[in-house]
């Protein structure tokens, strides 16, 4: 019995607590498949998945590719460079071209917010948002939630501190939405220049100091700071940023003793996170990668198997 009423996964916004729980439960099962010797199933045999990446991403793209293959789908990767062609034209034109090839699911990453939603209006298959500009990255939030739930046994009432460049982060937006929906307490910790306007109304507690923001936290989620944003534009220097906001052993002490350390990757060691912490006992960064494949299997399986059934949005 499929009880997931959505045709696309464009964001966490619009998902209910039940929807999220459903996906996480299925992902738990998918973890088992990935841990078996025989990892290939026939769930999506005969179906076609196209990964359409307008922004380069080795990690997310291979995670989606592996997820599709483990479900038995035929997977094709299309990486479209952003530089040489006018972005928008490429998006719609490429989408229409691909649509004519009858894919069953389109996994899209694009540098513009709303790109996945725009594409979903134009194609006749399911669309999974693999990151659109600074808007959302729903599968990342789901894999983070799965990692936390497996370690802590629950999501409600835990304290999650999201630290760093929240302003430019789609991962942060999706996580704030998901964790709030599941009843967690969300904090953001960042210099004011890296927080979006209206952040206090986004369902989070705002901190500008790691010592206060990490106090009693169950989860410390670090965000990547893009290189071009470090030198003077948003923060004065890498040195100053690491001093105040880089996660090291000293700052981590403020969190609970068994707090999880997370990072969506790729990491800038020595900028937002010290190597000893990234590789330390509290780090679940590698588990996040494993959960990524499982969550993406769950998402695609759910969307594709529900395609011919019942009402959908």
């Amino acid at each position: 019995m499929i009880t997931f009423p959505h045709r696309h996964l464009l964001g966490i916004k619009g998902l209910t607590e039940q929807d999220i729980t459903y996906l996480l439960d299925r992902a738990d099962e998918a973890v088992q498949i990935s841990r078996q010797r025989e990892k290939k199933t026939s769930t999506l045999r005969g179906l076609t998945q196209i990964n359409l990446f307008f922004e380069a991403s080795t990690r997310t793209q291979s995670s989606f590719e592996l997820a599709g293959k483990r479900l038995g789908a035929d997977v094709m990767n299309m990486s479209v460079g952003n530089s040489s062609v006018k972005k928008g034209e490429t998006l719609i034109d490429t989408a229409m071209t691909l649509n004519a090839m009858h894919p069953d699911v389109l996994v899209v990453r694009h540098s513009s917010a709303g790109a996945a939603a725009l594409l979903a209006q134009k194609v006749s298959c399911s669309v999974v948002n693999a990151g659109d500009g600074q808007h959302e990255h729903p599968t990342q939030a789901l894999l983070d939630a799965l990692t936390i739930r497996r370690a802590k046994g629950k999501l409600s009432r835990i304290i999650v501190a999201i630290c760093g460049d929240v302003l430019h982060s789609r991962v942060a937006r999706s996580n704030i939405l998901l964790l709030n929906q599941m009843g967690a307490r969300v904090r953001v910790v960042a210099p004011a220049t890296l927080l979006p306007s209206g952040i206090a109304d986004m369902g989070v507690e705002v901190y500008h100091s790691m010592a206060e923001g990490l106090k009693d936290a169950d989860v410390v989620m670090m965000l990547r700071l893009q290189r071009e944003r470090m030198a003077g534009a948003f923060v004065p220097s890498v040195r100053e940023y690491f001093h105040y906001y880089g996660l090291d052993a000293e700052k981590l002490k403020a969190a609970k003793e068994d707090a999880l350390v997370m990072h969506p990757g790729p990491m800038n060691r020595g900028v937002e996170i010290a190597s000893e912490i990234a590789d330390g006992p509290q780090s679940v960064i590698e588990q996040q990668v494993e959960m990524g494949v499982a969550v993406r299997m769950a998402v695609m399986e759910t969307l594709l198997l529900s395609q011919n059934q019942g009402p959908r949005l």
Partner: protein
Amino acid sequence: MTRPLVLKNLRIVDPSRNLDEVGTIIVGHDGRILAAGADAQNQGAPDGAFVKDCTGLTAVPGLVDARVFVGEPGSEHRETFESASRAAAVGGVTTFIAMPDTDPVIDDIALVEFVKKTARDKAVVNVHPAAALTKGLAGEEMTEFGLLREAGAVCFTNGRRSIHDTLVLRRAMTYAREFGAVISLETRDKYLGANGVMHEGLLASWLGLAGIPRESEIIPLERDLRIAGLTKAAYHAAQISVPESAEAIRTARERGANVTCGISINNLALNENDIGEYRTFFKLSPPLRSEDDRVAMVEALADGTIDIVVSSHDPQDVDTKRLPFADAADGAIGLETLAAAALRLHHGGQVPLMRLIDAMSTRPAAIFGLDAGTLKPGAKADIAVLDLDEPWVLYKEAIVSRSKNTPFENARFTGRVVQTYVAGKLVHSA
């Protein structure tokens, strides 16, 4: 020679005479008004006149839209003078000012003459060119204000762009003053909010879109107003969108500066929430602001701080709109819906009908020195006849403009333009 015309038994709202009464409008052979008011009720009709009973309808001076982007020359696939003028006629707009942001830019006498000639040959309403304030709209060298004005340019503007160089602005304003030229500018800071695509705030943050803070409009506006005071030039803030800007205009007037301002109908009728999930037809400049801002701007219009309302008609095609939000062009068409959208403010009791018509006809005609905006005897018979209470829905198929990027698709309106006359000639009838 036009056939004389008599419109009988209609309500006449003429802000130029502060007149609101039931009466008759009589138009003579020369396309000019002979009489308009209750006193014309029992006058005889001229020989051969076409007499129309308009009981229940309301006549106002034809609307004057001071900010229209056409697309000719250079982007005729979006709009031509012919198509824009037909859209204007549908909306009761009998006179509009065409912005110089074309390809090539209207910054030379020959181009002003081209606009005038094309409009005279093809347009069914009156079209006046605005000329570029600086060559190529580059914001560096001033254009030939005197010669351009003689050729027919009614104001000088940098179109969609602001003038960033304060010295250029001062010299342009100083020089323009001698020719009595009005300088009409939109203000947007070169740096603050430069990469923004919508109003800065919670909504933009959730959508992951870069915001345009209100200060991005206010700071350059306050600077412009200071220079207007310094130079004594006639300055018109083309489109303000936040109450702080209205406040700045008020303060500048108190200091004695010769300044006026306008607002786009979109900022009076819509707010940032209309963007929903990345609807690019609502991507505008200035951006749609918060509901509080919109309400405050309606008040500023009612109390006269805001002089005029413009449609900011800006035709865009799928090639510039069917894109991710941040990549899409700004702008929406608006000639056809200007009056209907404005009437919402009348029906809602926020702005009296007299003030609304003043802001869309009499006042812009006065600011830009146009022969329009009045129904007094002797005036050109440019008339919009409205059914104030007719309910209707704007369907895409009915749009006359060559481009369809309206923010009012499927919107419900109360009140529409049922007849439009230019110099006594019927150019639209619903």
